[in-house]
């Protein structure tokens, strides 16, 4: 870890391991289309290597090939200098490849120690409690997670659970640690924890691959970055002195233009929220929202920022206080009734709570406006086709995709479908979005921001929650910062990253 201590013996030890993981011109096609036509990268043991790319650039395909879910059509994958054939996820695990992503594979009802033992090669038939505990403690120390091995995993935060997954990978003797968007659901202090664990893992000789859209994190954490575009490796750069714009330029070929803001003169308030409280989540919130403007709720995980949106959408039955939309009180805890009043919601959990994955793009775009597309309950096919094409156009989705099952789209396009469901819909008066660009790359993010701005211009009040500072500053006209369930401050067009960051990390709530 400390450069001065690397005497010849350890250096030799490292060079033995330094082969790590290597991809040599891997290729993969789906039917007639090449998802990955030539990607090469070499990740030495002990180093942290980022993999970046636009949605649809072939990044997910590369990740899936490394973890054995997909097999390359051409090229080679080498581990420690030897060509391997990863024909299944089991085989990939056996060869020392461990994957950590947002979909955690730890079990909340078992203890930390038991989770660390899960799937381990030398799992004894009868678990020896004391040995298990010692083993777990050792792993936790190695990645720097301070918690008792006897704690139930369900009592840990999401970030800590991720650390447990990393520790488990270490315990299995992983040679390659693949982190796929691990920080997307984490708060700032949790991210720091994960980063130090990742550094500790690399220091023990593991080759780490870090896949992320968050370029700031890439530069902070990684040694090198490989950028893919259109299925090709376009650049491999050292992160020393590298600027995020440089990575974006390689990802897109150009820099996206910033989205214009709303004029500061405002209309009458359309949505009036008075003393809104959901016990345990947020307290005593009052604010007013006008049509045509974009409002951001800034806060870390658990601050109440995204919970406010869920409460407004009617997803918490225990909410008290009043919400009045254009003079009519909104019902509490009844999402169907809320939607009929014109308040639409898009969840941050795209797969679990957003899309109907096996259904096609058109069905997903039209599902909440079927009433307008039917007479006496019978659907009008021609109207569905016209409106479907129209909505797809407003959402920036290619018309050829309308009949494609949503699960076949990239993350960015899936997000466009989720956001698009409530666009160009005259019944929508307030649009609530929780993390509108989660897991979306820079280009896709710009496109979604543009869509939201266009929607606001048509007279819709847009409210969103985000944990990404640059997004808050870039998109919102008004930023509301929250911490521990209370509002810290409201910025009308004068929000700065520094101000928002200090509010959400240690600001005092106003009653």
């Amino acid at each position, binding site marked *: 870890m400390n450069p001065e201590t690397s005497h010849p013996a350890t250096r030799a030890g490292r060079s033995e391991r330094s082969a790590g993981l290597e991809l040599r011109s891997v290729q993969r096609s789906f039917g007639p289309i090449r998802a990955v036509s030539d990607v090469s990268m070499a990740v030495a043991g002990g180093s942290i290597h980022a993999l970046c790319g636009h949605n649809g650039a072939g990044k997910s395909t590369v990740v899936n090939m490394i973890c054995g879910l997909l097999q390359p059509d051409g090229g080679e994958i080498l581990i420690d200098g030897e060509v391997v054939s990863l024909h299944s996820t089991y085989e990939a695990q056996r060869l020392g490849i461990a994957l950590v992503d947002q979909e955690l594979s730890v079990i909340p009802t078992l203890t930390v120690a038991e989770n660390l033992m899960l799937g381990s090669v030398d799992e004894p038939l009868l678990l020896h409690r004391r040995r298990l505990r010692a083993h777990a403690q050792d792993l936790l120390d190695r990645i720097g997670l301070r918690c008792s091995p006897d704690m139930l995993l369900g009592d840990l935060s999401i970030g800590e659970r991720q650390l447990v997954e990393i520790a488990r990978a270490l315990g299995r003797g992983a040679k390659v640690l693949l982190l796929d968007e691990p920080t997307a659901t984490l708060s700032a202090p949790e991210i720091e924890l994960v980063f130090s664990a990742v550094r500790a893992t690399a220091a023990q000789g593991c080759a780490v691959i870090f896949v992320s859209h968050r370029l700031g994190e890439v530069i902070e954490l990684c040694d090198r970055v490989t950028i893919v575009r259109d299925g090709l490796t376009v650049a491999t750069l050292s992160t020393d002195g590298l600027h995020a714009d440089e990575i974006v330029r390689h990802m897109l070929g150009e820099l996206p233009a910033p989205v214009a803001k709303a004029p500061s003169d405002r209309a009458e308030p359309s949505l009036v929220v008075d003393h809104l409280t959901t016990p345990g989540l947020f307290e005593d919130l009052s604010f007013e929202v006008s049509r045509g403007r974009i409002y951001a709720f800034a806060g870390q995980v658990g601050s109440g920022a995204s919970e406010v949106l869920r409460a407004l959408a009617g997803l918490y039955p225990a909410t008290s206080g009043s919400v009045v939309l254009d003079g009519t009180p909104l019902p509490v805890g009844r999402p169907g009734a809320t939607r009929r009043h014109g308040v639409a919601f898009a969840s941050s959990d795209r797969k679990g709570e*957003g899309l109907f994955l096996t259904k096609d793009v058109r069905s997903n775009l039209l599902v909440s406006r079927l009433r307008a597309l039917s007479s006496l309950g019978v659907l009008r096919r021609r109207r569905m086709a016209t409106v479907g094409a129209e909505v797809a156009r407003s959402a920036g989705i290619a018309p050829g995709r309308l009949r494609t099952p949503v699960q076949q789209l990239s993350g960015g396009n899936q997000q466009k479908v989720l956001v698009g469901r409530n666009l160009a819909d005259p019944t929508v008066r307030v649009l609530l979005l929780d993390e509108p660009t989660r897991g979306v790359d820079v280009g896709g993010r710009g496109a979604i921001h543009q869509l939201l701005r266009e929607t606001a211009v048509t007279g819709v009040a847009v409210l969103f929650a985000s944990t990404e500072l640059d997004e808050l500053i870039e998109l919102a006209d008004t930023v509301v910062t929250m911490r521990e369930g209370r509002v810290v401050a409201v910025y009308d067009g004068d929000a700065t990253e520094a101000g928002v960051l200090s509010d959400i990390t240690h600001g005092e709530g106003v009653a």
Partner: protein
Amino acid sequence: MTRAAPEQSASVTVERNADDRLPGLLRTGLRDPGNWVLFAVLVVAIIVGASTPRFFTIENAKAICASTGTIGIAALGVTLIMVCGGLASLAVGETAAVSGMVFLTMLGHGLVPALLAATLAAAVVTGIQGWVIGAWRANPIILTIAVGSILTAVGARMSSTKAVAPASEAFEHLNKTPLGVPVVVFALLGLTVLVQLLMSGTRLGRLMYAVGENRAAAVAAGLPVAWTVACGFVVAGALMAISGAFSAASSHTITLEGANQLTFNAIAAVLAGGTSIAGGFGSATRTLFGALMIATISDLLLLRGAEVGTQTLVKGLLVLVVVLLGHVRSRRSRT
């Protein structure tokens, strides 16, 4: 290292302009592993049938059709329940039997009023279950078992002194064979078309698929979840009653003895047709073919003198194979 389906990037999407106006088996044909079973069953039935006396006779064809009819109509109801995410009703047989009894006792007022009364009773009882499942996420298995035993008690009381007898001869209309084909077959075909139109051509149908595939997403999108599930169950209950009326008419009485058998056969027919128990996928035409398979197999085994145990075993294996192949299909469609 468990991962969800690999996310295929947009630029690699193979366009599928599948036309959903031609639903079910014809369109997907042999590409769908779920349909291999249908072809396999057909082939086996022809081979085994050739060596079974009396299998290839007009009389036997009518018998198969009649039993396809009663199983199939009830199975259409189960299809709706399954598609909207309500798993299955385990009270199919009991609901059909009790509404069959209602039908027979009401026959004094004429055929149509008797049918309406039976259908209405079953629709209300089943619809309430649907509402409870849709609004409060009650466990469909436990709830329908409970209702099944309550209905058994009701039915036992209705037939306690003597078997329920028809109040008039009006039921004979249901036993007619215009053009040499039993009425129940026409009823099944007509109802299949209606249910298919309901599922693919109406707002309710689309909502049922959406709620069945991803309930949480339906709630978050503000869709009327409880209403959708309740409506699915209402129609299902009505279909169970029609099935009950036909079997009551054909045997001039109805008892609770065959109830479990009908429940099993109806669920087996839906699964054999390839409708997903997980919800959000399936169709009425699939169930029609599923019912035909189940009825043919039952008939074949009956003619060959197989015991009830053997019959159940064969049907169980069939369902197992179809469910496994359905799993293969859903995995394939994701990659």
